C-alpha cells in the first residue's frame, strides 16, 4: 500500500510530495503513482507525528475519566503518534507489572505508541525510590521517570534518582513544586488570589526547586527534565543552568502559552490546573523561552477528569485540563501566528526533541526519505470554535470550549498506518 501526499508544505516550507510505503517514507519519484492512493495536500502543512512527553491516560484506576484506548483517540485527533503516559495511576506505575500493563494496553489500542513513564518513588509517596532499573529493563522499557502530580521534594531522594537515571540513560522529569510553599494552593499567588480569596501558589515554589534540581543534576551528571514550566522566574533559572552546561531540558504546557489567571475570576474549575495559570508577563516569558530554545518542548499535561470532579467549588475541584486534541492549535495561535516560531520550530518542539528526550526512536529525521512514516497533515487556515464533539477522549474538561482556535489536524499516519482521515479516527482493528 502506497500513499502519495501531493503538494504539502513540508515543515511549512515549499510544497512538495511525500510518499508513504509500509511503515516508512519513500522517495515520491520512485513509486508507482498509478497504484498509490493520492491525497491532495496542497494548502496543508506536513509535520512529523507529534510526541507528547506528558499525558495522563488514567489507566489503571481512573477509567471513568480516561483509558489508554480513549487517550490515544484524543492523541490521534490532535496529531500525536506517541504519548508518554504519566505514572500517577492507581496502582501507581512503580512496578514492572503496571508499566507492562500500560504498555500492552497501548499496543492493543493502536493509533499511537504509548510509552509508560515510571514513578520515581514508591506510590509517589516521596519516601523510597522505586525500582528504577527494573522498570527500565521491563518490556515497557521505561526511559522517563516522574512523580508528576507530586514533587520529589526530598533532596536526597532526588539526588539518588538522578544517579540511577544517569546509569540507565533515562531522564527524571520533575514536577517542580515546593510543597511547603504551596499548602492549600489552588491558583497563582498574587493580587488576584488575594482578591478572590483562593489559596496562592507562588512562583518561587517552582523556581526554587528547579534551581536545586539543576545543581543536583550537575552533581550526578544526569539528565533532568522540568515538567510544565509556568513562570518567568523558572525560565531564568533554566536559562542559567543551560548556560552552565547542565543537562537540563524543559517543557511548557499549551495552556500556559495562551491562558492567564484572569480566567479564574469565574471560579469555573475548568481553569484549575497545576501549576496554575499565571500572568500575562509569565505567558510572554514562556513564549519567548520556547522560541529561543530555553524551553525545549511543548507537552500537553493532558489531564482528563470526570464532570463531577470539576462541577464543584474551585478549591474542592480536581486540578487539570485535557489538552491532546487542542495542543497544536494552541501552539499555532500562541507561537506561529505571533511570528515567534515557524512550523519547523513547532516540529522540533512537539516531535523531534520530545522524542529525543524520551529516547523514542524514529523521530530524528522528520519527514525525510527513509524515516518512519509518522506524518501529520494540518490545515492552518481552518478556524473553529472548540466544542465537546471535537474532544475524542473520554473527558471534556477543556479550557478552550467556546473559544475559537486556528488550525485543524486532518490526517495522521502512525508508522505508516492511517489513524486520522479527514479529521475522523480510523478505527480499523490492529494487530497486537
Amino acid at each position, binding site marked *: 500500500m502506497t500513499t502519495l501526499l501531493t503538494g504539502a508544505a513540508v515543515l511549512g516550507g515549499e510544497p512538495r510530495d511525500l510518499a508513504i510505503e509500509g511503515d516508512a517514507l519513500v522517495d515520491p519519484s520512485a513509486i508507482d503513482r498509478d497504484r498509490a492512493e493520492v491525497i491532495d495536500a496542497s494548502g496543508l502543512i506536513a509535520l512529523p507525528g507529534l510526541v507528547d512527553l506528558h499525558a495522563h491516560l488514567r489507566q489503571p484506576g481512573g477509567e471513568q475519566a480516561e483509558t489508554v484506548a480513549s487517550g490515544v483517540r484524543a492523541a490521534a485527533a490532535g496529531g500525536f503518534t506517541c504519548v508518554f503516559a504519566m505514572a500517577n495511576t492507581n496502582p501507581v506505575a512503580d512496578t514492572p507489572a503496571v508499566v507492562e500493563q500500560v504498555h500492552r494496553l497501548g499496543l492493543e489500542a493502536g493509533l499511537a505508541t504509548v510509552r509508560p513513564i515510571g514513578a520515581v518513588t514508591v506510590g509517589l509517596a516521596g519516601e523510597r525510590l522505586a525500582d528504577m532499573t527494573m522498570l527500565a529493563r521491563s518490556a515497557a522499557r521505561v526511559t522517563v521517570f516522574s512523580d508528576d502530580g507530586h514533587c520529589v521534594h526530598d533532596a536526597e531522594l532526588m539526588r539518588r534518582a538522578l544517579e540511577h537515571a544517569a546509569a540507565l540513560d533515562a531522564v527524571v522529569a520533575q514536577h517542580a513544586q515546593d510543597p511547603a510553599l504551596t499548602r492549600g494552593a489552588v491558583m497563582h499567588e498574587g*493580587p488576584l*488570589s488575594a482578591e*478572590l480569596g*483562593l489559596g*496562592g501558589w507562588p512562583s518561587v515554589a517552582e523556581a526554587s526547586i528547579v534551581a536545586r534540581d539543576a545543581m543536583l543534576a550537575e552533581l550526578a551528571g544526569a539528565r533532568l527534565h522540568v515538567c510544565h514550566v509556568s513562570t518567568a522566574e523558572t525560565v531564568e533559572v533554566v536559562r542559567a543552568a543551560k548556560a552552565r552546561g547542565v543537562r537540563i531540558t524543559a517543557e511548557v504546557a499549551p495552556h500556559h502559552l495562551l491562558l492567564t489567571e484572569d480566567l479564574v475570576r*469565574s471560579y469555573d474549575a475548568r481553569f484549575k490546573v497545576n501549576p496554575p495559570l499565571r500572568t500575562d508577563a509569565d505567558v510572554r516569558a514562556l513564549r519567548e523561552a520556547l522560541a529561543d530554545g530555553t524551553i525545549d518542548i511543548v507537552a500537553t499535561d493532558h489531564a482528563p477528569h470526570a464532570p463531577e470532579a470539576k462541577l*464543584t*467549588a474551585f*478549591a474542592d475541584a480536581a486540578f487539570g485540563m485535557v489538552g491532546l486534541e487542542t495542543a497544536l492549535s494552541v501552539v499555532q495561535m500562541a507561537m506561529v501566528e505571533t511570528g515567534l516560531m515557524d512550523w519547523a520550530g513547532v516540529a522540533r518542539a512537539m516531535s523531534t526533541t520530545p522524542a529525543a528526550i524520551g529516547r523514542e526512536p524514529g523521530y530524528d529525521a522528520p519527514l525525510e526519505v527513509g524515516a518512519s512514516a509518522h506524518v501529520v497533515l494540518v490545515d492552518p487556515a481552518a478556524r473553529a470554535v472548540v466544542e465537546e464533539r471535537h474532544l475524542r477522549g473520554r473527558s471534556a474538561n477543556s479550557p478552550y470550549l467556546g473559544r475559537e482556535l486556528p488550525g485543524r489536524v486532518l490526517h495522521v499516519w502512525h508508522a505508516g498506518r492511517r489513524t486520522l482521515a479527514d479529521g475522523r479516527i480510523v478505527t480499523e482493528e490492529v494487530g497486537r
Partner: protein
Amino acid sequence: MRHLLTASMPRDEAIGLLDLAEDMHQIQDRELKKLPALRGRTVVNLFFEDSTRTRSSFEIAGKWLSADVINVSGKGSSVSKGESLRDTGLTIAAMGVDGVVVRSGASGAPALLADWIGRPVVNAGDGTHEHPTQALLDAFALRRRIHGGAARGKALDGVRVAIVGDIAHSRVARSNALLLPALGAEVTLVGPPPLLPPAAADGSRLGVRAEPSLDRVIDERPDALMLLRVQLERQAGKVAPSAAEYITGWSLTDERLARLGDAHLLHPGPMNRGLELSSRAADSDRSAILEQVTAGVSVRMAVLYSLLASDHPSAELGGAR
C-alpha cells in the same frame, strides 16, 4: 436575575441600599416588627458552614419581611457528604424556593450556585473571599455613628478606617476593602506581615494601603478601627503569631485605647476579649459593636427586599459579577 455576591458595587447603589436599610431600621422601634413585603416568598438559608449570628440575622430579616425562612445546614463540605455543591443547589431550587442565602467554606461557591440554580443568591460569607452583608452593616453602623439621624443619602467621604487582624484569611476585610472605598472612605489594612494578603505591584493589598504596625496607624488618629476576629489556632501553625505576640503588636489594649482618641470601634464578632481588644475597649462608648448586630438585621432586610420583592425596581446588586 439579581444576586448579592460581592460588596463591590457603585457608590450610588451602596448608598441606596444603606438608605433602604434605614427604612427597615425604623421598624425595630415598632411593637409589631413585621412588613408584608415578602409574604408568600420562601427563602432558604443554605449554610454549609456553622454560623449562629449570620444565620439568625438573615432568619429574622426574612421573617420581619413576612417571608417563609427555611434553614438548611450542610455540615462540612457538600463534597464530603457525597453530594456535589451543584446537586445540592439544584435540589434546593427544585423545591420552588424564591431565594437562597449561602454560607460556604469554599470561596466562590455562591457565584457558582448563582450560575447553576436560576434563583437570586445572597452571599452570606464564602471561604476567605467575601461577606458582603457584613460590609454593608459595618458601613451602615459607621455612617450612623458619623452622621447620626441625618445619615440618609450620605456616604463616608474622607473617613479613615483601619482594619486590624488576619487580613489574608478574612472575608470581612475583603468586602470592607471593596465597599468602604466606594463610599469614599480611606481604608488601611493592619496585621502581622504573614497574615496580610499578597501585595500588588504598587504595594497595595486588596487594592488599599497596608501597614504592619498598629501603633503607627494609631498615631495617625483614624476615625474608626475595625478589629477582626482572630483565630490563631486555625491559621497555619508555622506562621501565625502566638497570642502574646499578637497582643504585643496588634491588640487594642487599654494603653492603645487611650492613645486612639475618639475613633469608633467595630468588630464583626464574636469577640475574644483580651486578644483583639481589651474589655474596656469593647465596653467603651466608642464601641459600635452591638449597633452592628442591630444594623445586620436592617441591612439584610434591605438586601432580601431588593432581590426578592416583585415591585422593587433596583438593578442587580453588587455590580458586575
